[in-house]
């Protein structure tokens, strides 16, 4: 299969170097959350402490931001799962005029720079005189989350054996019963994986959100304000670790649920 079963030293070094490049910054975030220093980003941290976790826990603005982000992500995910699953069901096997245009349309919100989706929604709200609200954020998020659910669902639907569906129909089940008893049980874990990734994507989104949130502060917007004008470095360090922990769980779960399908793509 291979011309040489062992990789050369240079190739190994370059490969593991790239992995280190990807992960050292993440490791640093965890270290800084325990840093006793609160005035600068000095390295190495002069001393280690866990006190900032307690301080961050007490912060109401952080809790408010986390709550808002959770609610936005939950609603956006719900909308994205319904729309993504329907689109995947329609496009999985059918071939018709405009099919490629539809999949392009679904991918467009993440293929075009986020600033364009953001400002497009912003100008639509402005033109229609729609005031900023919780729902203006959800509409934006749901739009770019659909493609994630769609990708996972369509990969699973393509693997689904059509003769199972035919067998179900032959045995006298109608279309709705077939969907409920045959298709959904097999599609379920792919939909769940898509939902988890959509949730992670929405929970983390900042570029579109800055255009559609008005004065509301989601967790990423809170984080962005701290990045531009650092006011409480230790609390920010802790929040950064919490965000990493909160997003790693759905990502790993989604990977585990779909590891037999095609690789997970955005």
């Amino acid at each position, binding site marked *: 299969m291979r011309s040489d079963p062992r990789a050369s030293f240079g190739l190994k070094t370059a*490969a593991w170097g790239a992995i280190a490049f990807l992960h050292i910054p993440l490791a640093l975030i965890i270290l800084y959350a325990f840093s006793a220093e609160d005035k600068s980003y000095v390295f190495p941290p002069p001393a280690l402490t866990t006190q900032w976790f307690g301080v961050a826990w007490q912060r109401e603005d952080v809790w408010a931001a986390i709550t808002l982000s959770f609610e936005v992500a939950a609603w956006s995910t719900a909308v994205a799962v319904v729309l993504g699953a329907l689109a995947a069901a329609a496009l999985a096997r059918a071939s018709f005029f405009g099919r490629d245009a539809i999949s392009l*349309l679904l991918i467009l919100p993440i293929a075009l720079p986020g600033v364009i989706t953001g400002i497009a929604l912003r100008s639509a709200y402005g033109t229609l005189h729609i005031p900023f609200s919780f729902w203006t954020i959800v509409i934006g998020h749901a739009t770019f989350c659909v493609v994630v659910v769609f990708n996972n669902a369509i990969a699973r639907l393509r693997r689904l054996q059509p003769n199972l569906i035919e067998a179900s129909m032959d045995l006298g089940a109608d279309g709705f019963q077939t969907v409920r008893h045959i298709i959904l049980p097999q599609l379920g874990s792919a939909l769940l994986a898509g939902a988890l990734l959509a949730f992670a994507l929405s929970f983390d989104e900042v570029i579109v959100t800055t255009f559609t949130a008005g004065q509301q502060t989601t967790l990423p917007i809170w984080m962005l304000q701290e990045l531009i004008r650092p006011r409480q470095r230790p609390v920010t360090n802790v929040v950064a670790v919490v965000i990493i922990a909160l997003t790693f769980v759905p990502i*790993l779960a989604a990977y585990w649920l779909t590891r037999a399908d095609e690789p997970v793509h955005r």
Partner: protein
Amino acid sequence: MNAAQALPAAAGGLQRRISDLLYTRRGLLLLALLAPPLLWFGVIYLGSLFALLANAFFGIDDFTGQVVREFTLQNFVEIGNPANLDVVRRSVTMAVAVTLTCVLIAFPLAYFMARYATGTQKAALYIAVMLPLWSSYLVRLYAWKLLLAREGAISWLAHELHLVWLLDALLSLPAIGGPSLSFSAIGTFTVFVYMWLPFMILPVQAAIERIPGSYIEASSDLGASPALTLRKVILPLALPGIAAGSIFTFSLTLGDYIIPQVIGDSTRYIGQVVYMQQGVAGNLPFAAAFSLVPIVVVGVYLWLAKRLGAFDAL
């Protein structure tokens, strides 16, 4: 499979009739499935894009700052002024540099993952690439603020390795240097490469995985050196993957306005100009017109990538 027995004898009624109708009229089923997503995307998303397009042709009243809904091409004339063209040129240069660097870093890892890693190691490497791709953009940006700060880890490392002179020499370079790494174009560039690297690794890996091992054996049997095999066999066959990855690295760099705002000197990129024009300056029409620039550039780029076969690798 006893599932069928467990089902109630299919009820005659309405449900059956709808089911039969949808089964026999495939078009109707398709319409029922597609109507909700198409309505959402057609009305909300495309509607917004058209609102954006319309705004680009509106003007702004200099005294009241209100949008004037009259057709004008003034915004597009303004894009042509030297300061704005400079922004476009700088953004495109950055996007090209970031894309090329991502290819250089991603290729060895992608090649290792595709041809040498097996079993657990392969799964672990895949997760190691996917986790940063999906994990928080802002937290990763924050990590670089820590790394690049004057008192941060990179300065410390340079000091420990007695390489401070090298760092200073790097920072004193004209145009890309600056007072510290976090206030220089070098910093902006490094963070862009870091952020979009996973988007390059995964499609390149997929492309290399599809190259049959026999091609590489044939090449070496015919006397080609590994370097020649890489250049004549592997690279051309991996090109669609590279093109697919570059769509992300290029488009994401072009539209980002947060990274250069947090890490970098005060020079601006396309995304920042769009953001500031609609926010601080309150000139939505000009922001709308300027945001069409990355659409056009990305469009041209996609057309080039399509010619390289990038879409077969997505």
